[in-house]
């Protein structure tokens, strides 16, 4: 049974048809990359999946349950966590408090001590323990992104939706985050859907990629198939040579 299925999702904002019949499914343990040009509808799709928007048409099924029209907190309590494209930390709480709140609302029965230890463990995992008692408002972008991930992982989700966690990071920070995402996937037994524009990263980490363009699914396949798909190159990747370079990287690794 797929962890996440979206069926024929339509969503319009006034005259803007953001999603026009998108369907896809994600299997357990998979990392699915969601790519496409700006305005393709990627974040809208995330917002439909997490219940922020109600789709005009279509269904969202998570862990076999039809959750279409559920409010976000109910979907979250099923075991779904997300990060936001523009980080939304709780600014006037400390990094530690940010993670602790998330643990408190994760449907686990933990004593105060267990919760505090769990928070500490998550902070250490993401190298945030040195900043534990700083206000989240004082973090730089890289640490803010880590906090977003920490707060999502603190819920011990089964399905994790990452909205551009790598955007704005330098190459060293990108590889750090990729490492952590891979580790977290293994440790927490996660299924991940990630929206990403950092192509080499998503090509490296994703098992499968879905390309959205103008609210429709343009292509779907392994990273290699996507990198060589002429339609994707024309709509999004742009440079055939660059696409070829991605393929070569795979060949070397493969």
């Amino acid at each position, binding site marked *: 049974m797929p962890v996440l299925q979206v069926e024929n999702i339509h969503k319009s904002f006034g005259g803007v048809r953001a999603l026009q019949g998108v369907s896809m499914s994600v299997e357990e343990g998979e990392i699915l990359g969601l790519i496409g040009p700006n305005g393709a509808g990627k974040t809208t799709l995330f917002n439909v999946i997490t219940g922020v928007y109600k789709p005009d048409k279509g269904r969202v099924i998570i862990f076999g349950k039809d959750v279409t029209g559920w409010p976000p907190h109910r979907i979250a309590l099923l075991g779904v966590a997300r990060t936001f494209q523009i980080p939304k930390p709780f600014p006037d709480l400390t990094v530690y408090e940010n993670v602790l709140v998330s643990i408190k*609302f994760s449907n686990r029965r933990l004593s105060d001590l267990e919760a505090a230890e769990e928070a500490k463990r998550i902070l250490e995992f993401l190298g945030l323990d040195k900043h534990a008692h700083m206000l989240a408002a004082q973090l730089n972008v890289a640490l803010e992104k880590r906090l977003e991930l920490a707060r999502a992982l603190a819920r011990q989700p089964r399905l994790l939706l990452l909205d551009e966690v790598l955007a704005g990071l330098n190459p060293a920070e990108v590889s750090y985050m990729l490492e952590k995402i891979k580790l977290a996937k293994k440790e927490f037994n996660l299924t991940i859907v990630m929206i990403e524009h950092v192509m080499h990263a998503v090509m490296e980490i994703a098992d499968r990629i879905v390309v959205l363009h103008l609210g429709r699914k343009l292509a779907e396949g392994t990273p290699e198939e996507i990198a060589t798909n002429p339609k994707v190159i024309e709509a999004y990747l742009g440079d055939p040579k660059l696409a070829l370079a991605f393929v070569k990287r795979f060949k070397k690794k493969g």
Partner: protein
Amino acid sequence: MEAAQILRQLARGRLITNLTVALVIAVLLGLGIGSLYSESLGYYRETITTFMVLFSIVLGLNVILGYTGYVSFGHAVFYGIGGYTAMILMYYHGVSVYLAMLAAVLAAMGAAYLIGLIVLRLRGAYFAIATIAVLEAFRVVAANVNYLGGSEGLQLSATYYRGYSIAGYHGLMAVHYIAYFLLVGVVALGLLINLYVSRSKFGAGLRAIREDEDAAEAIGVNTWKYKTLAFVLSSITPALAGAIIAWKRMIVLPGEFFNLGLSIEAIISTMLGGAGTVLGTITGTAIYHAVKTAFLTSFPSLHLVIFGATIAVIAELLPMGIIGWLRIKSTKLRFLLE
């Protein structure tokens, strides 16, 4: 810092808060008892009564403004609803003040729920403006409906007070003392509500809403339910204070009970001490009330000017309030000051 160490620090902070709260209630009670036996304490009894009225509104406001981040600008509306509900029952039906208080709090909670259904859909400044509109609407209704006494209000006769007595005082003589002790009870209840919010998962959810409502929803906080509950909780102590004061003054008047000025005083007190902290409500209200009383007596014609300037300076230098400012000074203080 180890997890166990954090919990120890937090426990120490909670102990400090508990002791402070106990001390405040003991001092209030002590002064009331003292005033029963010493005429000279009468002035203090009356000053502290005004203080406790403001404090009751602050303690309610802190739940919705401090913890939840919704600036309820017309929070005195619940003071008014409490006062009018109690007065209607006492005036038309001769009900005792105790029963009237119970009815007042239920009416205010019901009203908070219904008002919340509308205004809690708004955020930020829009919410604040909507709450002012609600307060004004209630005032205008109270001033124009005959059943509510119109602009002249409803006034109880002295005979209503015959049955009340305390420590050898009877009737109207007893009212000031009884009102004082009832208000101490309301303040104690308000402090308990704030302690509960500060320490519970419910309160953690409210703080998440204050910080970022969308992110709160995404981590599993039922934001609609939480903020509605917070709004209902925040109406309790203002309503009780309103009922007591309606009884004590013998009269309800639209402008005095649905009073924007009182709402603003409560906001200033909450912000001055540090919104969203228990110790801040005590500190802020105490300082505000002391300064206001001092200015009022020493500069009768200039006190509003001096007062406005003081507030501007505080807002500029201490936007997080006294306790809020201390809480970001060091990790240790953050744990110690609740």
